[in-house]
């Protein structure tokens, strides 16, 4: 193995044998990473292993009884508990609504705001502002705005003659409301990532295409969109994973209701674990969430790699 010149130089300077120096460097390095590594093992890896074992127990905190049941909790979720598939369906609808809407809006805003013009800083600041706002505050305000008759949204709709639905009390409308308000909250982040990517595309490409007589749409479709592909994939990973993690937004706006219409996976885990104290079942759900998120990440990382080759 080649030893870099720097190591040699410093070794000569310090008059310490090379091996000892290398050894010392390793010890120091482990000391440097030890705080984060220790905490990581205690508060992250340990719990991750624990949750796997919990998931194989029938353990209710109220009755204080725990028993090993093997794969029963998973069987419960997958085949016996109708709630589970309802939750899966809701989570998929949530993701299927949120991800495309978020990405399309983010890209459109980024295309409009990637070049300097009067007001560009103002608009970027506006579209990004909900990102720095707490999800709790955002959800509280939107819950207020989306009330049936007293809500500002329906009052505004009434002005133009539309009789707005009782947004948060009807399952389908509640899901739509939660998705849209979440998109408004988070779209600024993806917009910024797209703007950063757009700014790395040389103007020459576009100029050249324009000289050849390409229309705006053709330039976007043939030049910009392909060059954005890596960014689009990264954004898709982040946004999809984020959509499965959404908790506070649902907790405050709908509480999973009405009629479990917005009961999504993260909220279901919380409810089973901390409201009904079904530790075993909730842990099995957590493991399922873990696998889903991991598979998603790996699949998309592989896509990304293929794309880059």
């Amino acid at each position, binding site marked *: 193995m080649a030893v870099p010149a720097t190591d040699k130089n410093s070794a000569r300077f310090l008059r310490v044998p090379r091996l000892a120096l290398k050894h010392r460097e390793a010890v*120091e390095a482990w000391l440097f990473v030890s705080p984060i590594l220790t905490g990581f093992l205690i*508060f992250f890896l340990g*719990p991750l292993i624990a949750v796997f074992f919990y998931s194989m127990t029938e353990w209710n905190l109220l009755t204080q009884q725990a028993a090993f049941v093997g794969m029963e909790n998973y069987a419960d979720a997958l085949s016996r508990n109708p709630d589970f598939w309802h939750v899966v369906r809701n989570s998929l609808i949530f993701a299927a609504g949120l991800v495309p809407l978020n990405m399309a809006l983010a890209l459109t805003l980024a295309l409009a705001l990637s070049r300097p013009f009067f*007001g560009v800083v103002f608009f970027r600041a*506006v579209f990004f502002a909900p990102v720095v706002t707490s999800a709790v*505050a955002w959800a509280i305000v939107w819950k*207020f705005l989306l009330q049936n008759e007293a809500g500002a949204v329906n009052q505004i709709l009434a002005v133009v003659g539309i009789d707005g639905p009782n947004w948060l009390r009807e399952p389908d409308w509640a899901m739509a409301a939660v998705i849209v308000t979440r998109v408004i909250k988070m779209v600024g982040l993806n917009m910024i990532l797209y703007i950063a990517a757009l700014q790395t595309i040389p103007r020459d490409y576009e100029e050249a295409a324009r000289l050849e007589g390409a229309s705006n749409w053709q330039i976007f479709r043939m030049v910009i969109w392909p060059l954005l592909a890596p960014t689009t994939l990264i954004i898709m990973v982040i946004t999809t994973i984020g959509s499965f993690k959404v*908790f506070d937004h649902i907790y405050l706006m709908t509480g999973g209701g009405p009629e479990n219409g917005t009961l999504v996976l993260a909220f279901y885990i919380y409810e089973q674990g901390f409201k009904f104290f079904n530790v075993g079942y909730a842990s099995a759900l*957590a493991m399922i*969430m873990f696998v889903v998120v991991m598979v998603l990440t790996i699949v998309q990382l592989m896509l990304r790699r293929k794309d880059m080759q």
Partner: protein
Amino acid sequence: MTLTVRQIRTLNRICWTISLLVVAIPFVFPFLWMISSGFKSATEIFGQPSLIPRVWRWQNFVEVFEYQPFARQYFNSLYIALAVTALTLVFSSLAGYALARMRFAGAGLLMLFLISALMVPEEVTIIPNFFLIRWMGLMDTHSPLILLPVFGPHGVMATFLMRQYFLALPKELEEAGKMDGLSRLGIWWRIALPMSRPALAAVAIITFLFSWNLFLEPLVFLSSLELFTLPLALSNFTDAYGLPLWHLQLAATSLAVVPILGVYLIAQRQIIESFALSGVKG
């Protein structure tokens, strides 16, 4: 009538600006409505809607502090966020430096190990962490709200962000420091850290906001009102039937959101860049 290219461009620009203004409505309106409703009385809130309150009820902002120990809760959020930020800065830059600059056996494995953390949402580990914290006797204290963010996926993300930045720094100054007999710790503190102010600022900003906005952990670990953090306190302005006391809730929410928005408006370029950096690297 034919338009010149210049006129078409101006027209185009105006159309874009108007469309952007329309799209901006749902991004701005909630903030305006929140602040305005915070000044309204409970009855006015449900009366004829108007953006400007008919009667400015400053009393709301006094009642917010009487209803709950809101000042205490505000302070809790602030000091927890500062503690999380400080610890994250130290630990992530230490580990990030080692991963970027030092050669040691197991570094690759360690990286892989840490990367896996980025794939696991906090919701997955919250149940065992609940038992762990209870076993440690730290229920209903602020310790878990500091420990979990610092050592969880967010801390790992910060570590990678720092590592990425250290990798891009020129090595020469550090070599010179070594020649001058600085220890590794000295090089990290006196040379590497001062050169990575932009990365440290980015980590500080996203970490502060991450802690400030944390909700699941306070919800699970806290039960005493005077220990609540802001997000938990905000969700708690309800009457005896659990229905929201909108005028107080919105006044309190305004108090929680407006200072952050103020700082954001002043430093928006820096803040937006921080998120861009963490989004790309994390």
